[in-house]
């Protein structure tokens, strides 16, 4: 009986594809991130809270749009809907739900994404992102990774997938859940079918938040061995960028001749993501579909709609000092495409720098 | 003369993990080795001695004082830590000078730093930033900062790791010389033969406990119940074995006839050695080598660990 050879044996089976290796890195890192940070785990749960706030709206819209319901019936849902949209919009919703319901949903998702989820994403990225590459650099595990049959782009993809996973957990997964709630509560399947574009918008917006921020934070993580420095730089980028934007924006109010510097919006990460989301959710088009003209609405609705539009960059100030400025509808500054382009540029630049650094390391 | 250090009933817990377990130890001034495998508690002990940690239970006294929060005592101590860590952007001279000033050397710091670096053989490269140093240069820098303020008690944590044989030799010589000058030194290591070159007084640790402390011979002699092992290499092991069994106080024998080796186990090594030449001569077996496989630290350690 021959004695079994228990020494080194090369792998003779099939090797997995290239994406699977990136996924292997991602899976490992996701596990590490979840285990190492209690804060992260709690935060992931916390980020689903806004859904509790938004669900009733979908319920209410669904109820209003239902043609079989008595339009004069009261009830909580009607009240909720009535408090959000002006009566003429509600009438439109009832009359032509196929076109108006998606518009309402788009606006709701836009608010969901920009008011809460993008802020949460920033925090999550700050927690998960900076250590990812910095710790590999510090412990020289970087070289161990690259001495395996892993290309630098697979390494980057794996790390990016980690950050993206957590951001999507904040944006896409709750978004899909809300979408499901909305579909389940639409008046009919055809109406639901008409909202498919909104689903696409949700996916796109989630990716548009996840990928650029992920790549940017990985860039920061590559630049330093100290993950704390990377975290700080990430937060400082947001804080200082927002501050710079606000200063440049507000100061223009004191100068009658000065052009409002629209490029200031490109300095603020928050503004970049918000305007991009506004473009993806087509806030302008949705508003136009919901209201024939702003003067249709009165008082508090007008204010709310204007605030929403202003957040999306679709309203601007006319006259008045700081606390009494009048908002009117109309594009303010660059179209969303410019902001999307900027995000794309940042993403590509980040990816290139990280890859170049990885290649350099391999050559040493 | 006051004891160099004294630990009474010292236990150190890290949460639920026992770092040191009811350690009772007194050392006299002089050069001592602290031996044990990784995880034995050597680093914990050294941190307790230098005031970086406080015992969970028990009392620590170094040169008669409690090292916790005791700057006056720390002026008399010097530590060469295990970690390979520096302020990389400084040069060795700047680094040692800075630490010398922190030790209170004032305006003489620069001069003393230069002297210390010269002593460890670092004068050549002491102006370059530490970031570019080899392992040996870094070890020397670490040693220099430990001796620059001329401490009474020097604590060296794994000073020989990663050094090349030449550097190792130099460090060992330095330690011996410092010992001769009257300094007390505690060298922690897990590489036994290197420490044996520096001193013959040891403390053996394992699993958070002190197994034994004293001179090797003394320790060995205390363990009477464990037979000594004496290895003989000869031309005909079987014949010699029979002769030894017949005439000497042998408790056991291991024979490897093919290689011509035998190992005799005896509880009376002196009697064995006294009678061996006559027996060997009478058996007419050529003897190539004889060794007491035992008067070596690792053997002692082995026995002690096995009896745990």
């Amino acid at each position: 009986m021959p004695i079994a050879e228990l020494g080194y044996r090369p792998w003779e089976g099939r090797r997995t594809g290239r994406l699977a290796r990136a996924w292997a890195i991602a899976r490992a890192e996701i596990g590490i991130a979840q285990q190492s940070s209690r804060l992260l785990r709690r935060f992931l749960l916390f980020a689903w809270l806004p859904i509790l706030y938004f669900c009733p709206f979908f319920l209410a819209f669904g109820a209003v749009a239902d043609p079989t319901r008595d339009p004069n019936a009261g009830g909580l849902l009607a009240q909720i809907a009535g408090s959000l949209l002006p009566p003429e919009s509600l009438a439109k919703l009832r009359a032509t739900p196929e076109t108006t319901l998606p518009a309402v949903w788009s606006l709701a998702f836009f608010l969901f994404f920009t008011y809460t989820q993008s802020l949460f994403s920033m925090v999550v990225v700050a927690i998960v992102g900076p250590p990812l590459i910095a710790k590999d650099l510090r412990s020289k595990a970087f070289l161990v990774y690259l001495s395996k049959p892993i290309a630098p782009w697979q390494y980057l993809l794996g790390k990016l997938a980690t950050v993206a996973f957590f951001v999507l957990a904040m944006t896409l997964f709750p978004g899909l859940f809300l979408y499901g709630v909305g579909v389940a509560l639409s008046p009919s399947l055809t109406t639901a079918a008409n909202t498919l574009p909104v689903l696409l918008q949700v996916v796109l917006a989630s990716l548009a938040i996840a990928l650029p921020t992920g790549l940017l934070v990985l860039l920061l993580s590559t630049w330093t061995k100290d993950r704390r420095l990377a975290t700080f730089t990430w937060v400082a980028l947001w804080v200082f960028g927002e501050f710079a934007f606000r200063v440049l924006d507000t100061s223009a109010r004191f100068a009658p001749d000065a052009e409002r510097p629209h490029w200031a919006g490109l300095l603020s990460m928050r503004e970049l993501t918000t305007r991009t989301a506004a473009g993806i959710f087509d806030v302008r088009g949705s508003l136009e579909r919901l209201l024939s003209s702003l003067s249709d609405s009165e008082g508090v609705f007008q204010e709310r709609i204007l605030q929403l539009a202003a957040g999306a960059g679709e309203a601007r100030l006319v006259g008045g000092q700081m606390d009494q400025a009048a908002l009117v509808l109309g594009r303010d500054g660059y179209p969303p495409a410019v902001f999307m382009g900027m995000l794309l540029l940042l993403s590509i630049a980040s990816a290139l720098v990280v890859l170049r650094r990885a290649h350099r390391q391999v050559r040493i | 003369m006051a004891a160099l250090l004294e630990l009474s009933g010292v236990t150190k817990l890290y949460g639920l993990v026992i770092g040191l377990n009811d350690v009772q130890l007194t050392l006299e001034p002089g050069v001592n080795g602290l031996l044990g495998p990784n995880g034995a508690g050597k680093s914990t002990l050294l941190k307790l001695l230098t005031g970086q940690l406080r015992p969970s239970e028990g009392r620590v006294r170094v040169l008669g004082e409690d090292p916790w929060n005791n700057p006056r005592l720390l002026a008399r101590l010097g530590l060469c830590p295990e970690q390979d860590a520096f302020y990389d952007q400084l040069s060795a001279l700047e680094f040692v000078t800075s630490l010398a000033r922190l030790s209170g050397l004032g305006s003489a710091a620069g001069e003393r730093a230069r002297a210390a670096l010269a002593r460890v053989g670092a004068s050549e490269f002491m102006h370059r930033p530490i970031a570019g140093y080899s392992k040996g240069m870094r070890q020397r820098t670490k040693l220099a900062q430990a001796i620059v303020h001329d401490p009474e008690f020097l604590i060296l944590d794994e000073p020989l790791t990663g050094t090349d044989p030449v550097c190792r030799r130099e460090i060992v010589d330095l330690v011996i010389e410092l010992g001769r000058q009257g300094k007390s030194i505690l060298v922690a290591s897990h590489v036994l033969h290197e420490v044996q070159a520096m001193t013959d007084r040891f403390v053996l640790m394992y699993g958070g406990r002190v197994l034994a402390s004293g001179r090797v011979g003394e320790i060995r002699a205390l363990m009477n119940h464990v037979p000594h092992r004496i290895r003989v290499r000869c031309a005909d092991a079987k014949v010699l074995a029979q002769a030894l069994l017949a005439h000497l106080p042998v408790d056991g024998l291991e024979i490897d006839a093919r290689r011509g080796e035998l190992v005799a186990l005896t509880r009376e090594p002196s009697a064995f050695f006294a009678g061996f030449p006559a027996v060997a001569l009478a058996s007419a077996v050529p003897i190539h080598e004889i060794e007491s496989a035992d008067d070596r630290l690792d053997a002692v350690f082995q026995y002690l660990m096995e009896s745990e």
Partner: protein
Amino acid sequence: MGELIRLQIRQMLGGRRRWLVLLALSLPVLLTLALRLTGALGGAEGQRNEDHLVPALRSGVLPAQFVPFEWPAGNPGLLAGTVTPTPQGLLYEGRLVQTEQIVVWNDGALVLFDGRLWRDPGLPLPGSEAGLRFFEVQRGEQRGSRRPPVDFLFGLYLYMLYPQVTCLLLALLYGSSVLANELDGKTLPYLWTRPIRRASFVIGKHLGIVVALAVPTAASLFASWAVLTRFEHPGVLATTLAVSLAALLCYNALFLLLGFVSPRRGMILGLLYGILFELLLSFVPAVINQVTVSYFLRSLYLRLASFQLPEEFPEELAGAPLPLALLALLLILIVPLGAAVLLATQREYAVKDEA
């Protein structure tokens, strides 16, 4: 302790680390440059035509050069056809946006008076809607133009930029990581086994950071001030320098304490506190804003600068009198340092072994 300070400074400003501080402090200067280049500052400075015009309008007199304003046909830049003055006020797209009866745009180029729009042909109207800004004038009341005094605006900007944002962020970065760096870098044993009192260690590190940051910050502040005010208003520079130093001292003490409380999480805690409390909540005009360092820094700033505050400036945001502000800031400096010293002497900070 002097050596500790020196060592800390070298750690922060030696070699490659220097670029971080330099970069961080050149950003505010760049922002100020951008501000000046966009021309946004032009409106804040200098004498304005309306300073003469407004009193005249208030007394019911319209200067002779004004002619009734006709909307120019085909000019896409203005609010063509949609702005209508009425007895109730100004309507824009049928919506009432302005109820005042006397309104001045663009330093008097366009005026709303007596229910009509009037134009001064000698002054240019901006070609774009974005250029239309105006300041209210209350009819019949003796109120000056509500444009805030220019030194107040400059001071506000420099205060926000330096003590409030830049000094806070820098103190956060260095203060909260001072112990963590020694632990991660495993250099703590060298310092911890030296014959220095733990108190000296804490204070030395603190002062080292402040000194290392103070000089570059002062240089950066000087540059920003020069660009912003064109070397006028030296009082603003002096005040901002003083308050920036106070900000560095106090914020650094606070974040240092956080770094000692939890070397691992100190920075995150500091970030949360800094953003949530100091940058957001402290601007809410309610009681909550008084428990922030920011409140006292602002109060100190206003008391030292003795600005004329514009009427609508909420007093609650910076109401502390000078002695109280100084005392509070002193406490904010001493108490966290004291607590950090306590932690340093009582807690064990040990570097993890390699094994």
